């Protein structure tokens, strides 16, 4: 995945998260990391490895398996001027945190008329599954997009993983950072110095004229592969990474759709009431009178199965995205075209057990 930003060195997504965390902990004593396993020898895909040795047990500590209270603890510390980063090994576990996130974190600033703030970061890993099954693979970014007072970011590249995390740490609001397990090993060019993403700013990863594709999280990688195949049949696809889902950079997305006249949103989640529904609605509101052709893809409306053959049917892939895009563009060969296999090495090469 190519990136426009300047000089740096090659780091993977997990290393970029670790580097951003370490630099912010060095910059600000109020930043600390908590969560199940953050100080263990594996360090959550390496994203927290060694922080306990560098900063001590007060600033990088394991927690009891008590997601509800520990989220409340992070909020309480944030109310008291700290900047907690609460890390979860699976986003599925956030279902145990909903009361604190939705009823407290999102609302304290508003309910106290600005006198209090909750500068906390919640990091959570999502699938693609690799056999993680129905309760270890889910992506709930859309739940949090629904709630005023929460920010949601789904970085896809190593560059954005570091920049978005630093922006989240420095922001005075609760920010949900959604990380995809298949992305941790993906490499990219990452500057050494600390830098913060612009909150709510999308990125156009490749320009095109026939179709706009918005890909969320890991689906962005599949969309880029699909865009390459679509070139073979003469279709020029603009691929956008929204990066931030709340706030959403609808200006960038809608301006692209105004140019291409077509929009396909591929979400790393279910379509019903999801991010794809929201993005398409906002684009249509942004372009009154225009009638772009729109479509969306996401998980099948089923729980995620464990066995590989069913799992492959559950997720959109480069191949299914390319086929859908060709049809959406009304391409003359859409019904007969076979893009062939579209390998996704991060998926085929992924090994567990974690």
């Amino acid at each position: 995945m190519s990136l426009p930003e300047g000089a740096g060195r090659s780091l993977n997504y997990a290393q970029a998260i670790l580097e951003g965390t370490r630099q912010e902990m060095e910059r600000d004593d109020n930043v600390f990391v908590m969560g199940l396993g953050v100080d263990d020898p594996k360090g959550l895909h390496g994203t927290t490895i060694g922080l306990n040795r560098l900063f001590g047990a007060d600033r990088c500590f394991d927690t009891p398996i008590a997601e509800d209270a520990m989220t409340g603890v992070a909020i309480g510390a944030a109310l008291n001027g700290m900047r907690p980063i609460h890390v979860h090994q699976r986003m599925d576990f956030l279902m145990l945190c909903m009361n604190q996130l939705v009823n407290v974190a999102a609302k304290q600033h508003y309910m106290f008329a600005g006198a209090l703030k909750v500068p906390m970061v919640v990091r959570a890993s999502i699938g693609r599954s690799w056999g993680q099954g129905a309760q270890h693979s889910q992506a709930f970014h859309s739940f949090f997009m629904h709630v005023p007072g929460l920010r949601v970011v789904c970085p896809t590249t190593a560059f954005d993983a570091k920049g978005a995390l630093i922006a989240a740490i420095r922001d005075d609001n609760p920010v949900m950072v959604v990380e995809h397990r298949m992305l941790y090993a993906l490499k990219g060019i990452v500057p050494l110095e600390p830098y913060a993403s612009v909150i709510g700013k999308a990125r156009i990863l490749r320009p095109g004229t026939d179709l706009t594709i918005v890909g969320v999280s890991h689906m962005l990688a599949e969309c880029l592969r699909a865009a390459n195949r679509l070139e073979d049949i003469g279709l020029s696809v603009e691929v956008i990474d929204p990066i931030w889902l709340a706030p959403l950079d609808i200006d960038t997305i809608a301006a692209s759709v105004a140019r291409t006249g077509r929009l396909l949103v591929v979400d790393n989640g279910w379509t019903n009431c999801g991010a794809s529904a929201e993005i398409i609605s906002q684009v249509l509101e942004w372009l009154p009178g225009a009638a772009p052709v729109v479509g969306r893809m996401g998980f099948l409306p089923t729980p995620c199965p464990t066995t590989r053959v069913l799992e492959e049917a559950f997720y959109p892939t480069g191949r299914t995205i390319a086929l859908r895009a060709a049809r959406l563009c009304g391409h003359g060969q859409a019904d007969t075209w076979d893009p062939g296999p579209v390998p996704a090495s991060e998926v085929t090469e992924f090994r567990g057990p974690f």
Partner: protein
Amino acid sequence: MDWEDFYFKILRIRRTEEKIVQLYPTDVVKSPVHLSIGQEFISVAICAALNVDDIAFGTYRSHALFLAKGGDIRAMWAELFGKVGGMARGRAGSMHLGDPAVNMVGTSAIVATSIPNAVGYALAEKIRGSGRIVVAFFGDGATDEGVFHESLNFASLKKLPILFVCENNSYAIYSHVHDRMPAANFIERAAGYLIPGTKVDDGTIDAVYFAARDAIDRVRRGAGPAFLECACSRWLDHVGPGSDVELGYRSLAELESWQRRDEVARVAGMLDESSRRQIERAVDDELADALIFAHESPFPDPTEVERHVFA
């Protein structure tokens, strides 16, 4: 024991809530209210044992705590009326009273929800070595919630500077504690997390004050959390200004046994008549002034609705 101070503080809470009962039918307070009449002595006693810079977290039943912690009575009334003179310019209301200026920073309309926030606040105090302590107030119903147990476990694990105060009025809305747990053994439950507890069941302000002082000494020494269970009675309905004994879920005899030993009346009896009257006049004057302030305070401009969603 400063009985005059106790009387002033407990009486202003009682008179404030009696005024809410009186005004509520006029719909000037357009929001649910959970009155603490009968339970005021707990907040007054514990806040008297705290330092001003210690921190309190409460519940949706926190009129008493807000005033006892030093909250501004004018701002509280304006908040109840939904006016800009309120601490949160009317956007919080009765169920979310608080004011960082008096170190009361968390109340929640959801049972037990502010307990872990108090623990997290105490974690930050411990990391900073500030010497300040945090008090988490909650009812017996909150101990039904899993988050109560998770919070005690973590607070004890990290030896945090926090005092847990369970105001045990025996009812979660209309469910008696014996219908919700095999034994009302709050102290033993805290002890299970190695948190020493004290039960104060005589319903007096001085007993709560002395128990709180001992518990706070321990917490401030850095020995970890402490737990207080304070028996009390909620004289009025769970929510709203009315009585509820006619619903039949509790007996009139049970309620009257508490009302006969009303702490407001008992504390008044500790004072000579002239100082008692002087305090009553001061409370009445302050309340009248607060009501004028709240009535005269304007409502927020509708454009304020979108303010403060994000910091």
